[in-house]
């Protein structure tokens, strides 16, 4: 084999030997057909040490590396194998425009400041598109969290999660992940409470995927089952509220709320905006309201006006 006029080591170095050894081990585990024992594998693959103890240790290191990469190494009667069906994608058959679209998305959006592009090259999204791809003058940074991949893994496998949330242990069915207002939420069916819940991922303590699987419920919709409005994120008795928004910020509130379910917006002749909405969480409503300072006031009902007035009075009198 002739190489190009580029430098290469005159003899195999330790790192190359290890890589070759790991590739051969992976090939054997994936494609041998039948499971193979550690002895069989390490005696036929070049690069394992001669002594049994060192050979076993090196084999464990290699298994750990492969498992760390996500390969499930099955142990069957002291013999090892990897099921290729679990680890390879079918042909995605992406068209050129679909590749370009994915490339644009992956380039512009990241979970971390430096996102590795190589995994996406695997699915056909080339690192260098020669300048093609939609040129968008924007970047998007989504928050990352160390539990995201664990939750996603359980979701994709439809397996139950055991977790602690605000100090309370729960067993849940993870149905989806939703990024909202800068935080990731896990949309779950809480088995103990027999009800849907939305758990903020940074409030989850210990997390463990259980062996038990679940059937995805048709009634849980990740996109809609979690309200985006703070006054709806509660289980209090619903209150139909009416709020007047001053002309100065009416445009912002209109943009923020128009098109949302359960919210009625009535522009007024003087440029103000009348907003009718249903409150199931008072502190969420109050926070939204007072964030508008002098530009918003509760018109009704009287009880709600009194609640807000009492809150303000508790601070005004200090």
């Amino acid at each position, binding site marked *: *084999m*002739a*190489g*190009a006029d*580029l430098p290469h080591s005159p003899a195999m170095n330790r*790192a*190359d030997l290890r*890589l*070759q050894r790991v590739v051969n081990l992976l*090939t054997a585990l994936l494609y*041998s057909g039948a499971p193979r024992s550690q002895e069989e*594998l390490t005696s036929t693959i070049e690069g394992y040490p001669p002594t049994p103890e060192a050979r076993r240790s090196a084999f464990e290191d290699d298994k750990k*590396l492969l498992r760390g990469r996500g390969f499930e190494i099955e142990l069957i009667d002291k013999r090892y194998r990897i099921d290729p069906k679990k*680890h390879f*994608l*079918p042909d*995605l*058959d992406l068209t050129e425009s*679909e590749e370009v679209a*994915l490339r*644009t*998305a992956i380039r*512009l959006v990241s*979970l971390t400041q430096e996102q590795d*592009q190589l995994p*996406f*090259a*695997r*699915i056909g999204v*080339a*690192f*260098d598109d020669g300048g093609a791809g939609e040129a*968008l*003058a*924007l*970047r*998007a940074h*989504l*928050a990352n969290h160390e539990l995201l*991949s664990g939750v996603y893994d359980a*979701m994709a496998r439809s397996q139950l999660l055991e977790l602690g949330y605000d100090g309370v242990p729960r067993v849940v069915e993870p149905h*989806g*992940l939703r990024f909202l207002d800068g935080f990731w939420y896990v949309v779950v069916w809480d088995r103990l409470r027999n009800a849907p819940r939305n758990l903020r991922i940074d409030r989850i303590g210990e997390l463990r995927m259980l062996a038990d699987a679940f059937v995805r419920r048709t009634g849980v*919709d*990740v996109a809609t089952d979690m309200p985006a409005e703070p006054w709806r994120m509660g289980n209090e008795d619903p209150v139909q509220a009416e709020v007047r928004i001053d002309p*100065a910020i009416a*445009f*912002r509130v209109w*943009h923020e709320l128009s098109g949302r379910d359960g919210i009625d917006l009535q522009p007024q002749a003087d440029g103000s905006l009348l907003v009718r909405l249903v409150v199931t969480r008072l502190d969420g409503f109050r926070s939204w309201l*007072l964030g508008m300072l*002098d*530009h918003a006031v509760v018109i009704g009902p009287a009880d709600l006006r009194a609640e*807000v*007035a009492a*809150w*303000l009075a*508790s*601070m*005004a009198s*200090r």
Partner: protein
Amino acid sequence: MGRPPDRTEERLEIVLAILPYLFEQRIAEVPDVAARFGIPEVEVLQLLELLPDCGLPPFGGGDLLEVSIEGTTIRARPTQHWFNRALRLTPTESVAVKAAGQTLLSVPGFDGGALRSALAKLDAALKTDGLVVVDLDQPPLLGLVQEAIDQHLRLAVTYWSAWRDALTDRHIDPLRVFTENSRWYLDAFDVEAATMKRFRVDRTLQAEPAGPADDHPAPPSEEGSFTPGDGARRVVLDLPASAAWVTEAYKAVEMTELAGGRRRVAFDVMGERWLERLLLRVGPEARVLEPADLVDLQAQAAQRLLERYEA
């Protein structure tokens, strides 16, 4: 002298990425492979030198990977159907690509037909349809702002300043938009103020092209949606445990945990209105510790708003 770090995992990743591509292409050039996968050409060559000796033990006839290189031309033959498919994305990678796709789909004005179908194919392969949803703010003027950047245009805008709690008219040269914490931000040169500023796109009431923009150096790092300008004041607050959301939502300069879950938090604040909002939302357990002239700000703001309810 220590041993160089073990790059086996990283190099294995590269091998697993390029093999399916080589088997599909059958003939490829080293520079093209290097560019496609973002790897130095010398690394591609070094890896390809190793692969012909790899395969299925005990490495009899037909048990080796059929990859060869002559000059810079790579030839690959998928005789055994090994590694001729891309590896499944790991959970971390899946979240990243689905979140990226969902995010871009929620950008106003972006034509997402091809992206939707690409994501649908990925979902069908991974059986992950509907598992990830990204909700971003969708300010109506985002598209116009992007166009202004693309075409190097100045914009005349009416903007609601949160610090001043007032609408302001100004001219800006937009340079970059980005989203963080689900909000869209615009870095632009404020012509009247003669300085670079960061704006929230959703606080822009109106925007119209106003001629060509001037050239400006690239704005600083996107990281952190707020940087205090000249005139910022250091404010120290004592906040209750129930106000943990404050430090989640806003970047504190300093934070000290106190007894009972309370926190002493310092912010650089550009205007009193922002502080009023925060104090009224936190409630009567919040205290301004410094500066002295703002200690009564919460009571004053509360009284002012209360008068609308007592009228």
